[in-house]
């Protein structure tokens, strides 16, 4: 249990996918203007990363590794991610049309989110077993969601602040992101995966 706890802390905080690995920066800047959109995007990404990580683990172990098809890894993983997103969209629409109305708009954004592909490739590097890779993917995506919501909250406050004209908009956003990254560096050394 301690091993899994360390894996979760490491993936979510110490090696945060956005602030430490610099993945998913497009959605990090683009979808964090409001907290509610950040929650929707974060939840959808968490679901898709975990599902695609499960499938990619199976594809890696059953196909790519035994037949030495490593050079096809990126293409295969992208295909799996696209399929996972389509599956998620179908599931949410089936589970509740009302929820699809609220949450469905974030799903197409995930297909082109490099954080999803990045986490899946990190799983291969880590040579983890099935449950470890699922926990790692879930924790990584929860870390992504946490940062998205934190940053969206900060940007909502900044929108009300009297920011100098030169820094208004994206510049103050990037400065805030760098300060947030510095804060997350405080977790360094707690655990490593």
């Amino acid at each position: 249990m301690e091993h899994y706890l360390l894996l979760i802390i490491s993936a979510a905080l110490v090696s945060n996918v956005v602030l430490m690995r610099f993945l998913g920066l497009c959605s990090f800047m683009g979808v964090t203007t409001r907290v509610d959109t950040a929650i929707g995007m974060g939840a959808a990404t968490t679901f898709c990363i975990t599902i695609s990580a499960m499938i990619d683990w199976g594809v890696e172990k059953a196909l790519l590794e035994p037949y030495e098809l490593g050079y096809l890894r990126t293409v295969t993983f992208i295909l799996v991610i696209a399929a996972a997103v389509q599956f998620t969209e179908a599931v949410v629409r089936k589970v509740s049309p009302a929820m699809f109305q609220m949450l469905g708009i974030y799903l197409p954004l995930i297909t082109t989110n490099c954080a999803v592909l990045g986490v899946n490739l990190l799983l291969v590097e880590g040579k983890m077993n099935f449950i470890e890779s699922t926990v790692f993917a879930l924790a990584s995506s929860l870390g992504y969601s946490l940062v998205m919501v934190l940053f969206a909250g900060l940007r909502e406050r900044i929108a009300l602040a009297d920011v100098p004209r030169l820094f208004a908009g994206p510049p103050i956003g990037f400065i805030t992101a760098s300060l947030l990254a510095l804060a997350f560096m405080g977790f360094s050394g707690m655990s490593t995966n």
Partner: protein
Amino acid sequence: MSNLQSSAPPESFFPNADDRDMVEGFARVVALSGGKAWAEPEPAQSCGGCHSAGLCSIGKQGKTSAHQLAKRFALPGDLGLAVGERVVVGVREDTLTKGALTAYGLPLLALLAGGIMGQEFGHSDGYAALGAAGGLAAGLLAARVVAGILSARGVLTPRFLRRAFEVPVDGTCHTEHG
């Protein structure tokens, strides 16, 4: 239109004075039937948008009739709304969190529980994967039940807040930000 009536989603309500902190959005009335006004939400921008918006799939989503029909919801018929009228609708801020937890959180939790159980009892990756797949299926089923309960209570349905002003034909709003 019969398709609309058979699905019968819960009806939205008049704005309540206690309803603060609403997430607002625009919708357009597309039909009047069965004493209700049926509205479709206007396509929302899920990302900040960029100069390549015309090339990416985000701007094109939700345009098919099946997509639009799935997004229709009912408003009370006694508001005097006309077809084509633009209205402001809203859901409570915690609705999105509840929806996300139900649609994504519940299946993920069940997936993880199933995977751990498979690993503990089977001591192999195959059993863990099987357990996770079973857990995911159970979680999705549970999510559907919970979503049904929330929908029946009208928690997920947008409420009518007020009539909206029409956007000028040239689309400009003459503010500092354009």
